[in-house]
C-alpha cells in the first residue's frame, strides 16, 4: 500500500513521489468510517491519473470512489486547457451518464392505488434492457441536429418544456459539439436508441420523501420538495451505444497517436491527447455530441414519463406538477475556470463518476436556484433511493466544483450474485414495499443494496467535507431496471 497521510478531517493524500512520475498528489476525500474500506486498486488508479501531463493541484477521489478502468469511478482531474490533456478514460465509455430528478404534486397516498398500472405503463413506454430501441425515429440529418443541440432539439420537437431546459446542466447543450468528429459507426449505434434506459445500473425509479429525511427545508422548497410523502421520479442513464462507440473510436486513435504526441501512459486505458491537438479537439467535439445526445435521451424519457402519468391518472402532466428539478452529468469533461496558484486558469475538468457542485451565485446555476446553489443528484442503490444535495462555494474553491455521484460499489458483480438470487431479492424488496420490474433477474442480484456503500455514510462524508449540502433523502417505491 502506498503512503497515505491524513492532512485534515475527511482528507487523505498520497504525496508526489509515492509513485514515479506523479506530477501532483492524489487526494482522497472520505471519512473515518469509509476510508478503511477503500480499494487498493483505487489508490493505484488515482496515482496513475496524477502522472498525466498538465494535471492541476491534485488528482481527486470522492467518498463514493471505487475501482474502475483507467480512472477510478468517483475520480476528478483538471487539466490545463493550454498544456494539459483530454482522456476518454477520464470520462468513461458512457459519456454523460447522469441523473435527472423530476418532482410531482403527488403523494404516496395518491400513487399507491395506481402504482401497478403506472409501473407497467412506464416499463412499456421507456424501453430498457439489452438490444432495445426508442420510439423517436430519426434520419441521419436529424440525428446530427440532435447531437449538436441536445435538449434544445427536444424543445423544438415538443419533448421538453422551457423549465426542463433551464433546469438542465448548461441548458442541456454542451457547446463545441461537431457531428463531423463522430464516426458513422457511432451514428449507427445511437440513431435508434434515443429514449432508452439501457442496462446495468441504469434505472427509472419512483421514490418518495419519508418523514425525517428533509435536512434543509429552505433549499428543498426552492427545489420543489415541499411535503413528506411527496413523489419524485429519478432517471439514471447516459448516451447509450452512441457514447460507447465514440469513446472506443477515440481511445484507439489516442493509443495509436501517443508516440506522435510524445505521451506515455501508466495504463493504456488512460490514453490521452493534448487538449489543443487535432486529436484532442476532435474528441472534445465528439464527446460534446455524446453529452448532448445523453441530455436529449433523458429528456425524451422525461416526455414518456409525463405521458405515462397522464395516461394512468387521466390528468395533464402539468396539473400533476411533473417538473424537472435538475439534470446533471456525472461522466463528462467540461471547460471551467478556477484559481490555481493565485491565477485564474481555464481548465478541462474530467469527472468520471463525479458531479458538478456549483455554489450560490455561480452563473451556470439555473436562475431559479442561483442564490442557493446548484442541485446535486446522487443515485443510491435500488434499495436505498436517491439523495438531493446543493452545490457549495467550497467545492468550487478547493475541488474544481465537484462532488460525489452515487453510493459507490464495494462488492463485485460476481460476488453479489453469489450472495442472493434475483428472484429472492425481488420478493424481499416487494416485502419492504419496493416493486422492481426488470429484464434480467441475474442483473438485478448484482445491483443488490449490500453491493454498495451505505448512502447515509457517503452522504454524511460529503456534507461534513462541505463539498455539497444534504437537502433530502428519498426512498424507493418502484424501480424499473434494464
Amino acid at each position: 500500500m502506498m503512503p497515505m497521510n491524513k492532512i485534515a478531517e475527511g482528507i487523505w493524500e498520497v504525496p508526489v513521489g509515492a509513485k514515479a512520475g506523479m506530477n501532483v498528489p492524489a487526494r482522497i476525500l472520505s471519512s473515518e468510517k469509509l476510508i478503511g474500506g477503500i480499494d487498493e486498486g483505487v489508490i493505484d488508479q488515482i496515482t496513475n491519473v496524477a502522472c498525466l501531463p498538465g494535471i492541476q493541484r491534485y488528482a481527486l477521489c470522492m467518498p463514493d470512489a471505487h475501482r474502475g478502468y483507467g480512472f477510478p469511478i468517483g475520480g476528478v482531474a483538471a487539466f490545463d486547457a493550454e498544456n494539459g490533456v483530454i482522456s476518454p478514460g477520464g470520462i468513461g465509455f458512457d459519456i454523460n451518464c447522469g441523473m435527472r430528478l423530476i418532482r410531482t404534486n403527488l403523494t404516496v397516498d395518491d400513487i399507491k392505488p395506481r402504482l401497478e398500472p403506472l409501473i407497467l405503463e412506464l416499463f412499456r413506454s421507456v424501453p430498457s434492457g439489452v438490444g432495445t430501441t426508442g420510439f423517436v425515429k430519426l434520419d441521419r440529418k436529424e440525428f446530427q441536429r440532435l447531437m449538436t443541440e441536445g435538449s434544445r432539439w427536444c424543445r423544438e420537437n415538443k419533448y421538453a418544456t422551457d423549465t426542463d431546459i433551464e433546469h438542465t446542466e448548461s441548458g442541456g447543450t454542451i457547446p463545441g459539439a461537431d457531428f463531423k468528429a463522430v464516426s458513422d459507426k457511432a451514428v449507427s449505434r445511437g440513431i435508434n436508441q434515443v429514449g432508452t434506459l439501457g442496462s446495468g445500473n441504469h434505472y427509472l425509479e419512483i421514490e418518495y420523501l419519508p418523514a425525517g429525511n428533509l435536512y434543509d427545508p429552505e433549499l428543498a422548497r426552492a427545489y420543489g420538495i415541499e411535503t413528506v410523502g411527496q413523489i419524485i421520479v429519478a432517471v439514471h442513464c447516459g448516451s447509450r451505444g452512441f457514447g460507447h462507440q465514440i469513446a472506443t473510436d477515440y481511445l484507439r486513435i489516442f493509443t495509436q497517436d501517443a508516440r506522435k504526441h510524445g505521451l506515455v501512459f501508466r495504463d493504456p486505458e488512460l490514453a490521452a491527447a493534448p487538449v489543443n491537438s487535432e486529436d484532442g479537439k476532435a474528441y472534445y467535439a465528439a464527446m460534446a455530441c455524446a453529452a448532448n445526445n445523453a441530455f436529449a435521451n433523458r429528456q425524451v424519457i422525461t416526455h414518456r414519463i409525463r405521458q405515462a402519468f397522464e395516461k394512468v391518472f387521466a390528468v395533464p402532466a402539468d396539473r400533476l406538477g411533473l417538473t424537472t428539478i435538475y439534470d446533471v452529468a456525472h461522466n463528462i469533461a467540461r471547460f471551467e475556470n478556477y484559481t490555481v496558484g493565485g491565477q485564474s486558469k481555464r481548465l478541462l475538468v474530467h469527472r468520471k463518476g463525479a458531479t458538478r457542485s456549483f455554489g450560490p451565485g455561480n452563473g451556470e446555476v439555473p436562475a431559479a436556484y442561483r442564490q442557493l446553489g446548484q442541485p446535486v443528484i446522487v443515485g443510491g442503490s435500488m434499495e436505498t433511493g436517491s439523495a438531493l444535495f446543493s452545490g457549495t462555494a467550497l467545492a468550487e474553491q478547493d475541488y474544481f466544483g465537484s462532488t460525489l455521484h452515487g453510493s459507490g460499489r464495494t462488492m463485485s458483480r460476481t460476488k453479489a450474485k453469489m450472495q442472493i438470487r434475483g428472484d429472492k431479492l425481488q420478493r424481499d424488496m416487494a416485502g419492504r414495499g419496493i416493486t422492481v420490474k426488470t429484464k434480467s433477474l441475474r442483473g438485478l442480484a448484482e445491483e443488490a443494496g449490500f453491493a454498495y456503500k451505505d448512502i447515509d455514510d457517503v452522504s454524511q462524508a460529503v456534507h461534513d467535507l462541505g463539498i455539497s449540502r444534504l437537502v433530502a433523502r428519498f426512498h424507493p417505491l418502484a424501480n424499473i431496471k434494464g
Partner: protein
Amino acid sequence: MYKFEISDRYTTADVGLELEADSLEDLFIGGAVGMFAIVFGVSQKKPAAVWKEFELRAFNPEQLLVDWLSELLYLFDTEKLIPVAYEVSIGARDGDISLSGSVGFRPFNRNVDQAEHEVKAVTYYKLIIKKDDRLFRCHVVFDL
C-alpha cells in the same frame, strides 16, 4: 482450443474474462464466446444464418483483440447479430498484425435470448497478451 472464465479480478463495477488458448486465433474466438457469455449467460447453440467477412488490422495484438471484440459488439448493437461460428486467421502484415476470415451469426431474438448484461465496450485495462511455452493468455475487462 480455448478456455475462458468470467472474472472480477480487476473490477468492482464491471466484469472481466480470463482467457487461455493454444493459438492466437483461439484466444480471439474464446474472447468472443466469453463476451457473449457475459451478455447472455449460456448461449443457445444455433446454426449460423448469415456469414460476414472480417478484415482487421492493428499495430499490436492487444489492439487487434479490442478491435475484434468491439466490431462484434457493434454488429450486435446495430444489426442484432450474435456470433456463433468462426473461420478466422491471424498473421503479420507489413509490421502490423491482421485478422481475416469470416464469422457466422444468428439473429438476436428478444423473446428467446434472455440478456443478462449489456457490454458497453471493451477496455484496455490490464490487457496484455502473453505466451508461455504452450498457451496464449490474457485478461480483458469489459465496461458494463
